[in-house]
């Protein structure tokens, strides 16, 4: 649906990274973890296209919908200027959400950078279903790590990695995860979101680990609703044929085996 969502809060929580709380009851009620909003930042032709952001939280009882975004260009820069009480034109919730298995009690959430956003929403929902939540969260340096306490259910266990070692494990979050892993000993499923190289490594390694794993992917979008074929991601079907699926419609969440890197 298309709606004007009222800004409740729009604040920089770590340098360059903003936490945006919106009020829009229908979106709050309809959203599932893994879905995204496609927002029109100004009522003007610059920037021209909408911008997609994962839903980092949706609260049907208060009508609140959250987004967490990093400033990377003109669109996000303008978004950061949006003040409390102003309205943001949102299309959503869009896309296919994560689909956790009923019978797997342990959920591993693996995020790089702002890729944590959709997993925060997922963690809250899964935790509500009584699942055990393990969060592996990496960034290049400690200054970029979001204060997860604010966003995660209390019972979630968090493991941090930074490339410069300024907080937690020194190195990639995928390595951290691998190092804590005793393969096959535990039944768990993995949900991951982050930079493409990280997801690619994960997908390769998981061929050995063998966990059920779902990845949330990004691609440049125009329509966001499946009409333009713009957000193509290459996939491989079971009979090894390749083709393109739409990140905005069949995705952004894909089974790791589906993606052809």
């Amino acid at each position, binding site marked *: 649906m298309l709606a004007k969502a009222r800004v409740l809060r729009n604040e920089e929580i770590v340098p360059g990274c903003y936490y945006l709380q919106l009020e829009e009851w229908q979106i709050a009620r309809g959203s599932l973890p893994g879905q995204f909003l496609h927002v029109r930042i100004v009522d003007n*032709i610059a920037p*021209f296209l909408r911008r997609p952001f994962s839903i980092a939280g949706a609260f049907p009882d208060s009508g609140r919908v959250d987004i967490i975004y990093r400033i990377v260009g003109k669109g996000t820069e303008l978004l950061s200027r949006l003040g409390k009480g102003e309205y943001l034109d949102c299309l959503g919730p869009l896309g296919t959400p994560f689909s956790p298995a009923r019978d797997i009690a342990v959920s591993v959430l693996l995020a790089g950078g702002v890729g944590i956003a959709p997993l925060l929403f997922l963690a809250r929902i899964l935790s509500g279903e009584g699942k055990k939540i393990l969060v592996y969260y990496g960034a290049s340096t400690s200054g970029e790590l979001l204060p997860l306490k604010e966003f995660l259910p209390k019972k979630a266990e968090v493991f941090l990695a930074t490339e410069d070692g300024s907080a937690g494990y020194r190195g990639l979050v995928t390595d951290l995860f691998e190092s804590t892993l005793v393969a096959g000993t535990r039944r768990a499923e993995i949900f991951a979101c982050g930079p493409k190289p990280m997801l690619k490594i994960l997908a390769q390694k998981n061929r050995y680990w063998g966990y059920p794993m779902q990845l949330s992917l990004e691609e*440049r979008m125009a329509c966001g609703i499946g*009409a333009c*074929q*713009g957000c193509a991601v290459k996939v491989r079907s079971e009979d090894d044929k390749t083709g393109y699926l739409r990140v905005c419609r069949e995705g952004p969440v894909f089974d790791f085996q589906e993606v052809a890197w």
Partner: protein
Amino acid sequence: MANLEVNLGPLKLKNPVLAASGTFGFGEEYASFFELEKLGAVIVNSLTLKPKQGNPPPRIAETPAGMLNSIGLQNPGLEAFLEKDFPRLKSLNAAVIINIAGDTEDDYLTLARELSEINGILALELNLSCPNVKEGGIFFGNSVDVMSRLISKVRRACRLPLIVKLTPNVTDIVELAEAAESSGADILSLINTLKGMVIDVSKRSPLLGNITGGLSGPAVRPVAVRMVYEVYRSVKIPIIGMGGISNLDDALQFFLAGARAVAVGSANFIDPYTIPRLISDLQQFMESEGLHSIDEIVGAAQR
């Protein structure tokens, strides 16, 4: 109440606002926003004989007041379209125009012939912005000879109203428009996208997977309006104008320049309600100006 109906030669539309090919999928996605029967017609994604995978990503780049796309005609091919997408589109009560594309003359001819047999298709639109593989990759729409031959053949192969969609990447749009008319086109669509590219400076390489793409959106509107204005003066067949239309004022520029209908493309991505809003704004405009038919202002800016 003002009458929005228009006749484009043999093609009768309930109103003159269409969805442009490639920007409206097969209609399904927009049907969740409004009823497709409101539209003058939906021009579907370019259809090819065989399924087409399309180009490698990224396929979209934002540009100042516009965008580039390099979808590469991804589509399920004629067979799957007729089996699945077309019936669904018809069940949504849309007026349907089929845009066809090919690598060879034969592709176009087979498509035209087979689609002629199907009930419920309003017209065919020929996408000529495709390289002719047999003639060494020259674009069907770039050469008067190649284009004229194709149109004449398709004309004979099909009983449907024939729209020819011209590419703006040419030296003389008027020459091509005249040739299309005399080869049997019933209607002209102007314009397809301008060829452009964006370079990703941080990666020091072209941003699009396909290197170049087609430019659309408000940025190209002045070029599109100019081409409609020029072509209107030299052909008799009606024109469907498009290129950067997102509101009433934009659409009126095209009508005044000489278009008898307009199509909305990229603007659908920004606001899915663009077309129904434009239709009702147009209705209001006609009423407040006391127009009985849009024909009364078509070409009114010519001088």
